[in-house]
């Protein structure tokens, strides 16, 4: 318990100091860090489904998109304020999670992976095609910032602290969750579904609940994204690549650890910036190389699968346990 607390405090301190270092020490824009905040929420919520319950989902980005678009549509078409769009967007994630999870979670392993992958593709295509609702390829624009009374949160700093405070909450809560009675049951069904049934665990119901729960967190992150993305969202941000990126983060950080997933999220979302910096150093624009980021992710993933399939944090945890 004490060790967890220490981990949490260190993590929180890094989160609080990082933007100041970025801005005043290495003179770098805050966008990558802001992005990392969203990815932390996505990766951590997915790690409950993939790491804890052992159910592979390759379509987690879909719920992020559903949350973002629902909030965005509510805000632009109906002019609803943020304190309504955020709950409605989150609710849409819960409903979508239930409707998708119910049929899909009857499948196992490869079939489940394939089905969730298709869900991810289908929602992306829907965002592109439903012109009148989602604005098609162009997406939605003029999305309002979060505004309380006369104070409008439009600066990168304010976005950063809004997003990261929820990201931290997500990490702490999910970490607590994974050691709770429900978390233990999820680990049990991960090990052996039949044996779990035989000790009285409602395997399907539990899988569905954790899937819906993770979808809700992803959709919530999406609603924040809609309000902290400088006024626009477009389908390209919610393509299959997004879901693959999220699962890369979970694998990279260690399947069984919430903090690992959070770390994986930060690393993966900062990789493109590091590549750009390296390019600048050699006076080359590496970002012009097609799919350079995907290539690097691919290499990282392969290296991890070979040398540390359990992720970054996994080995350390085992030693200290």
């Amino acid at each position, binding site marked *: 318990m004490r060790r967890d607390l220490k981990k949490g405090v260190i993590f929180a301190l890094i989160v609080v100091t990082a933007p100041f270092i970025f801005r005043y020490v290495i003179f770098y824009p805050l966008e990558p860090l802001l992005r990392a905040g969203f990815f932390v929420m996505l990766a951590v919520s997915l790690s409950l489904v993939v790491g804890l319950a052992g159910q592979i989902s390759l379509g987690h980005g879909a719920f992020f998109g559903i949350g973002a678009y629902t909030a965005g549509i509510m805000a632009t078409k109906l002019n609803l304020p943020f304190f309504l769009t955020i709950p409605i967007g989150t609710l849409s994630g819960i409903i979508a999670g239930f409707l998708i999870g119910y049929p899909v979670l009857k499948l196992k392993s490869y079939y489940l992976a394939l089905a969730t992958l298709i869900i991810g593709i289908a929602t992306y295509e829907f965002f592109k095609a439903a012109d009148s609702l989602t604005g098609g390829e162009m997406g939605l624009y003029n999305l309002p910032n979060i505004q309380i009374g006369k104070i409008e949160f439009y600066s990168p700093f304010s976005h950063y602290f809004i997003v990261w405070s929820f990201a931290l909450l997500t990490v702490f*809560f999910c970490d*607590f*969750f994974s050691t*709770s*009675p*429900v*978390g*233990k*049951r999820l*680990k*049990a069904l*991960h*090990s*052996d579904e*039949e*044996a*779990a*049934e*035989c*000790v*009285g*665990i*409602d*395997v399907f119901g539990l899988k569905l*609940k954790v899937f819906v*729960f993770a979808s809700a967190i992803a959709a919530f992150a999406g609603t924040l994204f809609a309000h902290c993305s400088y006024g626009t969202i477009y389908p390209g941000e919610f393509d299959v690549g997004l879901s693959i990126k999220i699962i890369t983060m979970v694998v990279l950080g260690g399947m*069984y650890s919430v903090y690992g997933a959070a770390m994986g999220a930060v690393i993966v979302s900062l990789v493109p910036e590091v590549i750009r910096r390296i390019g600048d150093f050699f006076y080359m624009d590496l970002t012009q190389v097609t799919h350079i980021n995907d290539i690097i992710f691919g290499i990282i993933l392969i290296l991890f699968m070979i040398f540390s399939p359990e992720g970054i944090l996994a080995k350390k945890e085992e030693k200290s*346990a």
Partner: protein
Amino acid sequence: MLEVKGVSRYFGGLVALEDVFLEVREGEIVGLMGPNGAGKTTLFNVITNLIPPSKGEVYFKGEKITGLAPHEVTRKGVVRTFQNVRVFEHLTVLENVEVAVPENNRTGFLQVMFPFFKLNSLNGFIEEKAYTYLKIVGLAHLARKNSSSLTFGQQRLLGIARALACEPEFLLFDEPSAGLNRQEISELLKVIENIHQRGTTIFIIEHNIGMLMSLAQRIIVLDRGKKILEGTPERIREEKKILDIYFGRREKCSV
């Protein structure tokens, strides 16, 4: 207490169980014998509904349990162990038992999400309960160990502790002595007798006739999916000659 009424189970053209009728009364220890492939484990799977029967029904305390999901059968008090144990290797020894405690199963998502402070005492309660079951099988000293680091015999005992944590009224053992050495078997016998004395009805698959003789009040013999014999251990012993001829495996059925 438990009634199996005309249960049949076919796997394609293969007959695993055919028209099996049997009854286990409250407080009994009943043994189930038969050669490999006789349908013993299939019968257990049908009772706990891991495999639905092709025909027939199973009743527990007069209530039909065929058609319920396996976890519902467990919650009604009909609990089984597995021949190959199947511990949850992602969990520690103690956690393996904790997940089976009914209070743990009743703790839902909402409860975990909101009253943080109450959960601590609940966790403590579940842990304590799990400890008592570990003590019954004599594994309390290994509680914090990783479950996959246990020996096979210890895993067997862990499987029993896990089943006990479900608070069974009716316990099905699937070959609990398989793969254990003499000393481990005698420990196991004590544990099973202890469980029986606590008021649990026991139905046990066992190849080891000697063990059944000292435990069971009644033995049922299954062959090729059919019940061929039923009676007290003494009677089965008398019939042993017939059995040996019937199964044609003298050496394996030694007393």
